[in-house]
């Protein structure tokens, strides 16, 4: 196909970076692992108004975007029957991903390793970290039924306030509730074993046993108020949480600390890139953003991230009014990536200076 005439698409902002694509792939991969099905709940456009109303009501009943596979485009009666059926599992992937359910809806979530979480109504769960050695989820409110597959090489942790539940292939139910005396956590193990870790105590729960106790503060809040996190992963979790809560300066501070203290960590390049994005797009500090993107270029091991960072550095220099450095960065980008993903945009930077 030919692409003629004025290319307006080249004058629109970038929709995504390669890092965004990598994050999207994780979710696609998780869904591909499930049995093949056609269609998609949010894509259904039923032929009859009655069915449409029913579908729309179901789709709007939860804060979670429906993502369950479903059958092909239905007739009206078929659509109505589908509405009555439970919605399928939704993939939970990507550090910082949070799912919240409405006051009258529940949701089944699936992790990439096949573990399932049934989150009850009015619940909220955050995937704080998903790595090779550990998966860490935070149950922020409500009740959840965890069905965790055994994995000897990976710890599976569910954190509720200052309590960590370390699960080794188990099914257990945790709920957190607010009372006059503060938050109370209750856990019951149906299968397998779960270790309960509190600041000053540890205990082991076997199948059929339960545990209950009061808690005071969330782990992330403790970290932010108390001793500084000591490793790159914790700093990244603090930054992620801060971003979710709209505290962009705190997020930037955590990312900056990560880059400074752990430059050899594999996450450092991405942290530097994210830091640059926050500084440029949210804090409007182009000079500092240019430095962060430069750091991301230096640290990046993946060529695509290096290219993204080079393009955004040129943009930051352009926005900061540093014409000479911008031109130099632009020429360097176009020389290294003449047919790069951002070549069109980069060509337009610092043109009239």
């Amino acid at each position, binding site marked *: 196909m030919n692409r003629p005439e004025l290319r307006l698409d080249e004058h629109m902002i970038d929709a995504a970076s390669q890092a965004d694509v990598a994050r999207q792939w994780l979710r696609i991969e998780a869904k*591909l692992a499930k049995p093949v099905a056609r269609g998609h709940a949010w*894509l259904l456009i039923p032929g009859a108004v009655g069915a449409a109303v029913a579908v729309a009501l179901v*789709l709007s009943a939860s804060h979670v975007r429906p993502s369950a596979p479903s059958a092909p485009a239905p007739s009206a009666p078929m659509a109505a029957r589908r509405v009555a059926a439970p919605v399928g599992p939704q993939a939970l992937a990507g550090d910082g991903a949070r799912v919240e359910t409405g006051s009258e809806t529940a949701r089944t979530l699936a992790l990439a390793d096949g573990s399932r979480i049934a989150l009850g109504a009015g619940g909220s769960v955050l995937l704080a970290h998903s790595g090779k050695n550990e998966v860490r989820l935070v149950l922020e409110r409500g009740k959840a039924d965890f069905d965790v597959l055994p994995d000897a090489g990976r710890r599976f942790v569910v954190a509720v306030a200052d309590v960590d539940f370390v699960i080794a292939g188990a099914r257990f139910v945790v709920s957190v509730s607010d009372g006059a005396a503060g938050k109370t956590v209750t856990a019951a193990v149906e299968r397998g074993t779960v270790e309960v870790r509190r600041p000053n105590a540890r205990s082991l729960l076997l199948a059929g046993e339960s545990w209950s106790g009061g808690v005071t503060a969330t782990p992330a809040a403790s970290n932010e108020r108390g001793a500084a996190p000591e490793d790159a992963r914790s700093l990244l979790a603090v930054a992620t949480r801060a971003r979710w809560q709209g505290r962009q300066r705190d997020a930037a501070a955590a990312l900056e600390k990560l880059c400074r203290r752990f430059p050899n960590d594999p996450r450092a390049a991405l942290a530097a890139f994210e830091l640059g994005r926050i500084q440029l797009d949210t804090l409007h500090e182009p000079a500092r953003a240019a430095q962060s993107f430069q750091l991301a270029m230096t640290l990046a091991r993946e060529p695509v991230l290096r290219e993204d960072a080079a393009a955004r550095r040129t943009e930051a220099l352009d926005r900061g009014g540093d014409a000479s450095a911008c031109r130099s960065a632009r020429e360097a980008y176009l020389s290294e990536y003449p047919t790069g993903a951002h070549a069109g945009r980069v060509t337009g930077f610092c043109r009239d200076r």
Partner: protein
Amino acid sequence: LVAAAQRGELRAQEVLVKKYGLMVNGLCFRLLGSREDLDDLVQESFLQAFRSLKTLDKPEAFRGWLSAIVVRTAHNLIRRRRLMSRLGLRATRPVAVEDLIAPGAPLEAMFELGSIYRAVQGLPAKARIALVLRRIEGWQLDEVATLMGASLASVKRWLTDADRVLAAERTERGVRR
């Protein structure tokens, strides 16, 4: 690569996502006119593509074939949004045009993009998509028809409707071309 993905090789599918991900994100973003639902649309488009990849006869045509899937998936999403809005279950948000245009874009491009994205809000889904593919993506009429799986006559009709709305939008703002 496409042949390996057709055999269900996960690594090949990953490379395809990473190779075409920016293109798909860009197309989805421009069709939607916002980042709302962007991730879902991108993911669903790739899932649809991988699930029907065996039907693709010419691996070298993957890019165009994938674009057609994105267009079809976006069409369904836009229709669903409209349905939800009509039922009062979804707030209709105006497109924030200034958030879509790149810094440093020439005035002519800013003007065009502004007009188009203000106009698309009042257009039926197919006219909206045809307008974006033709005026923003720059596809030829027959290519728009192929991407939308429609006849050339239908595309012309949708674009005529879109041009009428576009002209009205410009008149309303006192713009003469």
